[in-house]
């Protein structure tokens, strides 16, 4: 009976695995096929990989888009983590009258969809353009700035700080550390796990972010990977082989970041046990 149950479990898991892996596999296979073959549903690897890549790199400026996306994603991740964790730490550790009320208002801002604030935001950056052109519309800075302070990450770090032993703060103060010193010397190293998880989320959000970069970045030299892919698929006669190649290349960095962070994830866990 138990054996039967086990077999059933494995069959179910196998089906689930196939369903979730199939689109990814299809993407990889399609990368090697001609557009006509893809539309006709060919599922076998083809011989068009090199042609697709050549066309891709001739047709669009993949390198620039990768560089832009990397700059935006790395800076955004770094600033999001720094600001989010400082704020989350502050909300949890320090006693301020009315801090919970402020925190609730902050959480409310999570309910507003981005599309609703996009137009005022665009207007704001339009105004900034007139006086500080290097922060205005059509700059990478404009693509980064509205995304670095998010209620989600403040909330995320506040929740995680609840697990942080408050005694360590007292110990730090007694040993004469400054408040920032406590944050950077004690809090940051012990919370590696949370940072790794947050970094994965922040990086993926930023890497895949579409709507805001779309409206705020105008020149081709500034466009990011999602914008480039959107452009590739929009012709009257889209070349699906080329599009799939671009998507595979675009997916690689998030996969790499995930696997890199996963290692830290484990290391962070071990570190916190030792400490």
């Amino acid at each position, binding site marked *: 009976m138990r054996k039967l149950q086990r077999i059933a479990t494995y069959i179910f898991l196998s089906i689930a695995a196939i369903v979730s892996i199939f689109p990814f596999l299809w993407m990889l296979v399609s990368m090697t096929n001609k557009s006509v073959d893809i539309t006709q549903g060919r599922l076998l690897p083809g011989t068009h990989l090199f042609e697709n890549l050549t066309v891709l790199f001739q047709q669009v400026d993949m390198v620039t888009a990768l560089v832009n996306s990397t700059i935006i994603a790395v800076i955004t991740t770094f600033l999001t983590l720094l600001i989010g964790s400082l704020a989350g730490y502050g909300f949890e550790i320090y006693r301020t009258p009315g801090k919970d009320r402020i925190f609730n208002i902050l959480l409310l801002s999570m309910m507003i969809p981005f599309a609703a604030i996009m137009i005022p935001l*665009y207007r704001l950056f339009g*105004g900034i353009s007139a006086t500080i052109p290097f922060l205005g*519309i059509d700059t990478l800075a404009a693509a980064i700035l509205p995304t670095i302070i998010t209620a989600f990450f403040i909330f995320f770090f506040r929740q995680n700080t609840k697990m942080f032993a408050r005694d360590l703060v007292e110990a730090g103060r007694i040993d004469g550390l400054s408040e920032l010193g406590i944050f950077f010397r004690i809090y940051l190293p012990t919370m590696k796990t949370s940072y790794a998880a947050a970094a994965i989320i922040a990086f993926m959000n930023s890497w895949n972010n579409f709507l805001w970069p779309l409206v705020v970045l*105008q020149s081709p030299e500034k466009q990011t990977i999602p914008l480039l892919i959107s452009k590739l698929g*929009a012709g009257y006669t889209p070349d699906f082989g080329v599009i799939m190649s671009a998507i595979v290349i675009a997916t690689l960095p998030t996969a790499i970041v995930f696997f890199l962070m996963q290692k830290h994830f484990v290391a962070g866990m071990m570190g916190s046990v030792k400490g």
Partner: protein
Amino acid sequence: MKYFSVRKSWILVFAIMTIFTLAACSSDETGGGSGEEPDEITAWAWDPNFNIAALELAKESYEKDIKLKIIENAQDDIVQKLNTGLSSGTMKGMPNIVLIEDQRAQSFLKAYPDAFYPLDEYINPDDFAAYKLAPTSLDGKQYGLPFDTGVTGLFFRTDYLKEAGYTMEDLSNITWEKYIEIGKDVKAKTGKDMISLDPNDLGLIRVMIQSAGSWYVKEDGTTVHLKDNEALKKAFQNYKAMMEADFVKANSDWSQFIAAFNSGDVATVPSGNWIGPSIEAEASQKGKWAVAQIPRLDMEGAVNASNQGGSSFYVLNIPGKEKAAEFLAETFGSSKQFYQDLVLDVGALGTYKPASEGEAYQAENEYFGGQKLISDFSKWMEEIPSVNYGMHTYAIEDILAAEMQNYLNGKSLEDALADAQAQAEAQLK
């Protein structure tokens, strides 16, 4: 503070680098918006092989010195960017020239009245196919420079049709009823489906009703006209008849639609002329295709010519507008030679009437068995009935698509259209 020394200073270094990178990535002024006349004018369009190529060609053929920056974006992305930029009211980052699909144009012209620059002083609207003018003008002012045509044709497989006993002549000057009859015959004799349709896309309905000079809205562009719309009724009946005739190969998206004819599964593709390159992409079917006039609705005033898609260029009312308008006027607006090159190099068919006298329009297309495709299309183009697409084509179509399903499932036609009318009126108030 000694703890806060060397080992953690990388954070500080990174922060400083960040600020510098941000500053370094910033750009010089683009687009317009500021008060001064810019050196460079920008243009937004979609499709590298078609619209972008046409703009590049125009830039090359333009005799005056101009710095034109052509920026490619997906069509939906352009709509999104324009809507955001124009609603914000800053005009910052907006292009000088933008391509807008005809069926959307009225909504932009009406929603942002001062955002566009009229071109009456630069071009003569009567030089262009008449059906292009209603969607591209507002209150008697011509805002759009009419560009490509979506003139329709009935693309068909000559080998399949021949097998069933039909020639080009049998397909010319026919009604949709006749088309359905032929379709049944073709299916019976060859086993091939006649047409591929996406049940959620009413593109073919639009083609049918425009051939009778009708649309989802009345001539004023705002009054919803679904109930008691004779042309729409006939179109719905034809659509249902096709679905029930068992010769429709259903598709659910663009790639399946293309696959349907590339794989040789369907015998005809009634579509805008722009489908040509997608058909030609399957080299093995060379010589097996031809294009007949699109069938018409069986009613008075209906002609064997219609339109599907097509777009026009607009100039935004920002610094650089005179330069942009002049550039468009001297290329797309008045140069016969330019349109000859356009047909030869890009394969794009414009709506500038004087161009059809040129030699390039007489070329024979080998893929389509030596048919003078461009000449045929430009002849049919001049017959397309003019309709005002109004502002809500896509919104109404969403409602209609749902009612179409109800109609196919047995609801009466009168009820379906009356319900659609009521819903559209409530929604678009």
